[in-house]
């Protein structure tokens, strides 16, 4: 991209027209607004962070104590979500990219319906999860219901990233393997999918970020209980619900809401960092880029 930037920008540094000034100021203001949000969160929340905050149970409706059980619930919800969604997504992606002709009508239909699924607001997923998993399947407000609902939600994103990483596997590998007499299913299982693993990992991390940020779909499915979960059928409060509840419903809960918010941001930073690193190494190997923007 840097070549494009400099090539398209031959007069850089020579002319400071009015547009340049407007754009620098505009871009600066955008960044200032975001930094305001971020620094405000960090400024108010960092002071709350301590080892006991991370490990202890919330007390007094969350005004005191920590977020230990909430972290455990969040992790369990995310694991259920990924354990269901990742294998499903890999299967669908293999079908779409390896087994269907590129321009087939079926492929188009599947993709359009996945696009529509990706656009469904999370509040609708929440209602669906509540009606289907919690009530019709009788799972109740539970970590399992929450994880399954999130799995439906991140599925399109996972399929898309997995599909693009499978398609990025160079064609000559497939041809070579076929020429060596490998059957098609062996080519897919032993060659294509393993080669696509870095991309699948990146997609998984992106889905993880999306799932962790989710609030409303979980309010209706995994519930509000802030105790240490004993099983997947227990209700468990996720970190983002905890932030919401402390901020909205608990007088004097702001300090710990910010504390939990900082933990959430930190976790996302780690995920973002991992995505960036993996995408970079992968790009270096295969010459492909995948964008973290979804």
């Amino acid at each position, binding site marked *: 991209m840097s070549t494009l930037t400099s090539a398209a920008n031959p007069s850089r540094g020579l002319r400071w027209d009015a547009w340049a000034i407007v754009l620098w100021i505009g*871009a600066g203001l955008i960044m200032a607004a975001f930094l305001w949000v971020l620094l405000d969160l960090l400024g108010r929340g960092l002071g709350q962070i301590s080892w006991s905050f991370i490990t202890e149970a919330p007390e007094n409706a969350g005004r005191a104590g920590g977020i230990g059980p909430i972290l455990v619930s969040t992790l369990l919800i995310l694991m259920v979500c990924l354990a269901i969604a990742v294998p499903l997504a890999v299967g669908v992606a293999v079908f779409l990219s390896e087994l269907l002709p590129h321009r087939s009508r079926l492929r188009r239909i599947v993709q359009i319906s996945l696009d529509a699924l990706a656009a469904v607001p999370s509040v609708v997923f929440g209602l669906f999860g509540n009606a289907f998993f919690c009530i019709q399947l009788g799972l109740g407000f539970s970590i399992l219901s929450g994880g399954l609902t999130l799995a439906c939600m991140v599925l399109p994103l996972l399929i898309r990233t997995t599909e693009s990483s499978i398609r990025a596997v160079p064609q000559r590998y497939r041809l070579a393997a076929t020429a060596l007499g490998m059957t098609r299913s062996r080519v897919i299982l032993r060659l294509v999918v393993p080669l696509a693993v870095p991309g699948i990992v990146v997609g998984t991390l992106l889905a993880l970020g999306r799932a962790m940020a989710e609030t409303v779909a979980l309010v209706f499915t995994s519930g509000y209980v802030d105790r240490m979960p004993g099983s997947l059928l227990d209700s468990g409060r996720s970190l983002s619900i905890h932030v919401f509840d402390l901020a909205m419903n608990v007088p004097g809960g702001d300090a710990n809401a910010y504390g939990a918010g900082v933990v959430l941001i930190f976790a996302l930073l780690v995920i973002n960092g991992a995505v960036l690193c993996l995408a970079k190494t992968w790009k270096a190997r295969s010459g492909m880029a995948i964008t973290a923007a979804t």
Partner: protein
Amino acid sequence: MYLRSPARASTVLSPMLIGAGALALLASALIAFIFFVVLGEAMAALGEIGLWRFLTDASWHPSSGEFNLLPMVAGTGLVAAGAMVLAMPLGLIAAVFVTFYAPSPVATAYLRLIELFAGIPSVLYGLWGLVVLVPIIADLAAPGSSLLAASLVLALMVLPTIALIATMSVRSVPLERIQAARALGFTKASTMVKIVIPSARKGLAVAAILGAGRAVGETMAVMMVAGNIVQVPESIFEPVRTLSANIALEIAYAMDVHRSALFVSALVMIAFVVLATALLEFVTNKQAMPDVHPD
């Protein structure tokens, strides 16, 4: 496109094809399944109240048997429109800035930060809005929780998505076209306005549709700052309630017809999604989006 080879015929009915195909059907049927589950829950209200009353009742007071969704449809539309009016130009500014004006390291750092902000959970934007923004607006005009607050918070939330997609489409404008314009003596500014932005308009439309979709669907952040009064606001300082906030606010307490009526509002949102997706198909079909994958 590849492996249109002899291997194909022999594997047409392989277990793998059947298994993966079944998964694909499952995944693509999911949207329909969600629709039917929601429809099933909504049937009670549609039968008992009837579609018409969702549009003609005096207001939304489920406990008094009034079920008009229109004020909340208007609220949703206004909040989302306000957010888009703010976020679209800003997203475009960010895109043009990183592509044509910022030195390369600045552009890279800028994009990394925007990607980071795209990942920040909406509840944290809501927290900031509740604690920082609403009191500021309350000083201007009480109560502070308002259409304006909701639009501002939403604008911040959708801006990263819009900026990133806009950057992608601005960057994909063919270099020759830009160089030709410059060679013809266009100033940098008029190259921008007359060449780059028109060339990138499909991508910008995609950014707008996706941004609007997110703005319409967002729940928690909006619920935290919008004030949640069911009304068609007369000024930007008045509170509003969106469809999604209405669901989140009432579902835990709703029983029977009331609960069912909330599923009707979810149907309205699904209808919007289908419309937006169709629009997206229409836009991207005419001229393919810059494809990051090789064919």
